[in-house]
């Protein structure tokens, strides 16, 4: 694994506009950054990223299977009891998952370590699947990259195949917070792939979902929402006014409710409990567990629910060396062994290893000057050399 500085395409902004990638610059700062890329060997990709991703996903499935009918686990995750039947039923009905992204610490030498699992509402799929691939193709054409350069990326075609399997002829509604450009872009891209899979689709803001007298979620055309992809976290849905309707509504959701078990950072502690000393896991414990003493005075403290690094603190030798403010933490925290991100030219990269329908099939990289990657971190492309 190397970080290689390179020339950026002089027309990449025009290319971005042509593909509908309109959040490449956020608040005047680069989000997409191709002034450098990360290079991997094929062996690194296949043995050190792809294989562990598959193995971690299998462990996650085993974890859900164990936790779903055991209230001790559900209580430890602080999942609201009123939603346990919804979560359980979705698992027992075998409701399918479209995608997820594992965030890994990897330096090219030791094993990749799971930092966390974005199991419910991962974004950056468009830039990973499409714009990164365009960069590779144009980079080869323009001799920025070697002619034999490749990329760990079959996201686009696997999304199309996954939609065919998941929809089974149903009309698909896609919903989220449309005022957010990144979320709107993600939804537009996923709708594009769903259309290519032959689905009929409707895109609507999450606030435009209606509840019809007599029962059932509907769109603004009074069409029943039979199958919905939501880019809106389950823990937020559980707090919204329509939460109480979820149990009786016939809508099937993607990601399914059982993903609430995995999008909770308590799953990191449960995974370590089930698979202690696994090379791709970091020791992690619920705060208050006497085992946290094993971590010593260096660890990462994470709320059970957190986004964009909020309320996460890095404690080294008892001193808080980095901390992101935020509104999370009411449900409790976990402590995870400190796995410092590798430093490449003063940048800390985190690997996002994508799963589509449980198949590892793509990589995205975000880097930051800060060892806690937040929503100002930049997306850098990668290549296999």
């Amino acid at each position, binding site marked *: 694994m190397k970080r290689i500085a390179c020339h950026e395409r002089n027309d990449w902004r025009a290319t971005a506009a042509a593909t509908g*990638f309109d959040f490449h610059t956020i608040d005047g700062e680069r989000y997409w950054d191709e002034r450098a890329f990360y290079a991997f060997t094929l062996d690194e990709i296949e043995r050190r990223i792809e294989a562990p991703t598959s193995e971690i996903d299998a462990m996650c499935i085993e974890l859900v299977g164990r936790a779903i009918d055991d209230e001790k686990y559900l209580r430890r995750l602080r999942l609201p009891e009123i939603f346990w039947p919804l979560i359980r039923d979705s698992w027992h009905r075998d409701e399918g998952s479209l995608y997820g992204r594992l965030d890994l610490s990897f330096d090219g030498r030791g094993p990749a370590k799971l930092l966390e699992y974005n199991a419910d509402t991962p974004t950056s799929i468009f830039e990973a699947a499409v714009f990164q691939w365009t960069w590779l193709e144009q980079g080869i054409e323009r001799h920025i990259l070697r002619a034999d350069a490749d990329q760990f990326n079959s996201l686009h075609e696997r999304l199309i195949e996954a939609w065919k399997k998941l929809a089974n002829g149903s009309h698909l509604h896609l919903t989220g917070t449309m005022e957010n450009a990144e979320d709107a872009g993600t939804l537009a891209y996923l709708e594009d792939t769903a*259309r290519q899979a032959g689905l009929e689709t*409707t895109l609507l803001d999450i606030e435009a979902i209606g509840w019809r007298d007599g029962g059932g979620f509907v769109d*603004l055309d009074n069409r029943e929402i039979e199958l919905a992809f939501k880019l*809106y976290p389950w823990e937020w849905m559980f707090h919204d006014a329509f939460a109480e309707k979820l149990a009786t509504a016939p809508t099937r959701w993607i990601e399914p409710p059982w993903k609430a078990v995995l999008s909770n950072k308590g799953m990191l502690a449960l995974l370590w409990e089930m698979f202690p000393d696994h090379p791709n896991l970091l020791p992690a414990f619920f705060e208050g567990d006497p085992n946290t003493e094993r971590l010593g005075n260096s660890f990462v403290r994470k709320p059970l629910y957190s986004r964009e690094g909020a309320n996460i603190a890095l404690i080294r030798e008892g001193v808080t060396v980095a901390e992101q403010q935020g509104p999370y933490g009411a449900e409790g925290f976990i402590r995870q062994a400190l796995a410092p991100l590798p430093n490449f030219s003063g940048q800390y990269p*985190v690997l996002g290893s994508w799963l589509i329908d449980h198949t590892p099939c793509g990589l995205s990289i975000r880097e930051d000057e800060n060892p806690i990657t937040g929503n100002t971190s930049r997306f850098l492309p990668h290549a296999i050399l």
Partner: protein
Amino acid sequence: MKRSRRVVLTMMGSGAIGAISMGFVERRDCGSGFLREVSRGLDGRPVVTCHGVAYGGFGRWPHQFHGHGHGHGHAHGGG
């Protein structure tokens, strides 16, 4: 992974030219909290029915919580 792969967009960006996008569905209600449904009566004339529908039951939590709806991050952070 596959040098022969083609990534084609049919609705986004310039790929949207010629593609039929339903886009956002527009509200066609018949009064606050009611939805309009048009069907044909026995005489072939349109019949408009308004159904009670409540809106806004999802999407409020992030506004109450931290003022915006963003965030599915990457890293020591996401969800």
